[in-house]
């Protein structure tokens, strides 16, 4: 490995900074209006002043809710070592009804599985955190008892427990026993605990049952996407990243051209590109399917498509007519490219030609694709416009 030239090094630094969330968000952290300092104030006030809080972090995806939370927790753990234990639950992981672990649980009505699982998971993490023995077979009652006494003991020992509930909205399914018992414990015994819910549903607190909501303390922090005036703000980081990848190594500067070339690579139109590569016969099949759809046929499979193909050939007197097995090959190719798909997953035993299929592109896209196709015969355009007129009519 020789010495990298300065441009390379700059590229590496830029890349690493863009892709690490902690750098991106620590930059904004100093001002008192930032979510970072507000969240830090809420959690640290619970640590130092021994109070309970529950906070919701709301905002669209990709706005740094969890990233900011992680920064805050990391710093607080540094500031108050041995005084904070963090329990993390994720709604997608721990609210799954089909969880494989449930067979090991005592027999319960199905609505309680998730709560039981959650509380077991909390107990597990608490045991791990405090180096206690953990039993997987403990019942729901035991676990909730354990949770209560842990909350009390930790409160007496000036230790704070932070519950991070990612995908908070998924915890609100069912009877919300977990949330109820957590929040009720927090308001009835002397403890220091913070419940941090992270959700991208803005009405997450409205999803709570009313007795749970009454116990929730309703601090909300709203995370907004950082930039505003561009067409699609969410693409910003990806655009920058690819622009940097295209950085000119000779000059060592980022130029406007880099960004211009990066933009189309981000905003790709995969379906149009797929259409561009299709053969004429495949386009024929697509058009046939579209026509069948316009005619509002109930089901269409390869045989009905072939019938339509034949009728087109007959009416418009097109020059080329392919044999059935060639068409079948083209049809399978379309299936592989996922421009069409089977209607359902049933009937795997049947051969492909008898299974119902559906079109996955709209008329608009098909039209555009045909127009931009390099070797499309003119008749195709006529065909589709005819088809369109039928559709409009």
């Amino acid at each position, binding site marked *: 490995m020789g010495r990298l030239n300065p441009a390379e090094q700059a590229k590496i630094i830029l890349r690493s900074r863009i892709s690490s969330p902690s750098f991106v968000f620590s930059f904004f952290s100093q001002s008192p209006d930032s979510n970072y*300092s507000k969240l830090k*104030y809420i959690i640290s*006030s619970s640590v*130092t*002043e021994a109070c*309970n809080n529950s906070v919701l972090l709301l*905002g*669209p*995806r990709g706005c740094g809710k969890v990233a900011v939370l992680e920064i805050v927790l990391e710093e607080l753990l540094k500031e*108050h070592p*041995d*005084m904070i234990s963090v329990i993390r639950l994720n709604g997608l992981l721990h609210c799954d009804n089909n969880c494989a672990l449930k067979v090991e649980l005592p027999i*319960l*009505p199905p609505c*309680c599985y998730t709560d039981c699982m959650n509380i077991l998971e909390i107990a597990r993490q608490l*045991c791990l955190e*405090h*180096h*206690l*023995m953990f039993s997987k*077979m403990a019942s729901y009652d*035991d676990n909730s008892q*354990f949770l209560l*006494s*842990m909350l*009390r*003991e930790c409160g*007496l*020992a*000036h230790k704070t427990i932070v519950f991070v509930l990612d995908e908070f*909205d998924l915890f609100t399914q069912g*009877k919300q026993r977990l949330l109820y*018992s957590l929040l009720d414990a927090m*308001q009835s015994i*002397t403890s220091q605990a913070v419940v941090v819910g992270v959700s*991208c*549903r*803005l009405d997450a607190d409205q999803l709570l049952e*009313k*007795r749970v*909501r*009454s116990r929730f*303390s*309703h601090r*909300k922090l709203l995370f*907004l996407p950082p930039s*505003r*005036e*561009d*067409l*699609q703000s*969410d693409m910003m980081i990806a655009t920058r990243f690819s622009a940097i990848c295209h950085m000119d190594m000779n000059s060592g500067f980022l130029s406007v051209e880099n960004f211009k070339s990066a933009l189309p690579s981000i905003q*790709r*139109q995969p*379906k*149009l590109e797929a259409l561009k590569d299709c053969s004429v016969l495949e386009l024929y099949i697509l058009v046939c399917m579209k026509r069948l759809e316009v005619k509002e046929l109930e089901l269409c499979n390869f045989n009905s498509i072939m019938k339509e193909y034949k009728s087109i050939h007959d009416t418009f007197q097109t020059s080329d007519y392919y044999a059935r097995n060639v068409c079948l090959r083209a049809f399978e190719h379309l299936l592989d490219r996922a421009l069409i798909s089977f*209607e359902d*997953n049933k009937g795997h035993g049947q051969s492909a030609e008898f299974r119902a299929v559906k079109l*996955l*592109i709209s008329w608009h896209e098909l039209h555009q694709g045909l127009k931009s196709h390099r070797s499309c015969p003119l008749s195709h355009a006529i065909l589709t416009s005819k088809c369109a007129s039928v559709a409009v009519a």
Partner: protein
Amino acid sequence: MIETPKMKKSNRTPKKKQPISSPDRVIEPLTPQTSTPTTNLRRSLRLTSASPQPSPAPSRLKSSPRSGRKTSKSYKNAAPHSPTTISITPASPQPTESGKKRKSQDKQAGSIEKRRVLRSDKCTSASNKGKKRVYYRKVIYDGGEFSAGDDVYVKRREDGSSDDEDPEVEECRACFKPAGKRIMIECDDCLNGFHLTCLKPPLKEVPEGDWICNYCEARKSGKILEFPEPPKGKKRARTAREKLLSSDLWAVRIESLWKEVDGSYWCRARWYIIPEETAVGRQPHNLRRELYRTNDFADIEMESIIRHCYVMSPKEFSKAVNDGDDVFLCEYEYDIQWHSFKRIAEIDKNEDDGEGADTDDDWNSCDESDSVSEEDIEYDDESKINLLPQTSPAHPVAANSRKGRIFGLQRIGARKIPEHVRCHKQTDLEKAKATLLLTTLPKSLPCRDKEMDEITTFIKGAICDEQCLGRCLYIHGVPGTGKTMSVLAVMRNLKSEVDAGSIRPYCFVEINGLKLASPENIYSVIYEGLSGHRVGWKKALHFLNERFSDENKRGKDIRPCILLIDELDLLVTRNQSVLYNILDWPNKPNSKLIVIGIANTMDLPEKLLPRISSRMGIQRLCFGPYNYQQLQEIILSRLKGIDAFEKLAIEFASRKVAAVSGDARRALEICRRAAELADYRAKKSPLSSTDGKIMVGMADVESAIKEMFQAPHIQVIRSSSKLSKIFLAAMVHELYKTGMAETTFEKLAMTVSCFCSSNGEMVPGYDTLLKVGCKLGNAEYYCVRLAQGTNCRNCSSTIPGESITKMRLSIRVHAYHRSMAIIYINGGHELHMTLTTNIK
């Protein structure tokens, strides 16, 4: 098993081990304490000095190592010497000679011998029928009156020094004369007392706040200013407090008192420890008069008790300004095994105190009755047995699965007491925040007097009836109106009445429907509450049925039983058998069961089967939502004495909440949030520290309310990307144009491209638009819902991304938000004006 922690400790804090060298422990089994393992801990080991051992006291033992700070220091300095001293001690048969000497002075050796034998007998066999210990609540011994729960000084060992006389009166540190009539002041740093007139310059009166004497002040500034030497011939007498703080005395809390068969008085004591003796030593934020309560017990003889001292909780301590020299502060419990600190729970302390005060009369009246003492002895032994596995679990036990008892929790504790707890002085705002916490139990419960009276009369009527026919009360009301709180407060009041003896005892079981794993589990919880055993729910149901219906089988427990079921609606199963069973028991003759059910809905009985509603719906009590005056009163009663809120702000908050829900929790949370916001403002802006107090004003309350009640849709829409705004606008436009509740993606795409082209925006690609739509619809559920389309069969099995084109979209934002969204889009980007005209 017990040995190991001690070994560890001895490694860590060698200075404590010095009085007891390791061979002593081998000898130790000879002492009576070994039969009671709980007393076999560090302190009690040292305490063996108080236990009599008939052995000739060799004179050389006078040089036995002095325990305590000073000597340990000297050992440290003279490191090579220490091994020799230790090697001497094992040679002596007992290291406890000094205590022995005192004992032999006081009493004859023979009787001591006898007592020892008796005690060890009792502990091993635990049944010496003829002779029993007699337990007392209060003992007058040597002129002092001692009762269980008192704190006392205990002699540590025979101290050869001259301060035997133990002056009750503190002397002035400057003139060495007792206080007399002149007022003395205490330095907050070195705790020495001074006459006001002896000071230079003399003070007229006791100053407010902390005061530090000139000596300490000088020491702090680096100079050395010696205390005046005492006059010749007069040795300065140390007070008991000074001796305690230099670990020449011990303080204990008396847990129980008894008279041994031979007539000597003993007590079971719980040690206090001074900060220097803990593993971390004295921390800078420890107060001068601070003690820690340990979890270590020992039996000591009454004669080693010197006199009372007063160990107080911080609250009492702050009030006890003028209570003399023997006042100490104790906030934490110290675990001597794990070297960890834990706050002393306020609740359990209150209970202790209440019990002590209330049952005092009973104890005195039945002092000598044998039955009582026998029971107590049994109980005592039992508790020792129980304690054993806790202190030394033979094998690791899972913390979360023991039925009813949880292991390993004693390990949790702070290694050190965090500094911020002490050093930080609370501002008014922080005090307000603390009192507004839902956890803090208010001193008074305003606004629910009528309801509480009603509950009280209901329960009293049910209990005090001779027949004690079962009854049932249904309490309903919206969340946060104090239902559970009122019932629990009534039960507390009743408990104190039971303790006073005016009501017959009863048993009380509290259950929360939402905390049960399944409705049927309630049986086992009830049964556990009544009998203490845990069984499966079917068995429990069987037992409970027997207990409540069959008079013969209920055993000797004839107390009436009160059952409080919170969140009653969670117990409704499909065939409602759980509720039926529970509500049927009170109607059985002689069941003596009273059921109080709490739920939110007013018409829960009507929704149930008629046979249940006829049993439950007779007596009802409604907790209406609080109106704004009541809310205001609740908040004000909590904030009494704290000047942090503007009056108008409180009224504003309570009016707002009363208009929406009348939920007291909500009102308290709003006020707390407002206080937090004000506090945040105060801490973040550097200027505010100069201009003094920040009050919680209307603006804070308003922003708290906004945060709590307002959905943030508008803000998010305003800051979202332009394309998604256009997407939403197109959707709204489409929906208004067609008048339908739903639309399809294809139509929407048409509209979007129309909008874009007519406004000079770049028309987005189809796939880009799809991505935006998916993001809005899939991730931010609030805007778009994917409704199942009619032209697309079996949509649910497809991936949303590819099927959105086929699905019908319908907007889910509330109508209010919808119009707001349009306005923002128009205002922000001057979209087509026809859009709004179309809509309106």
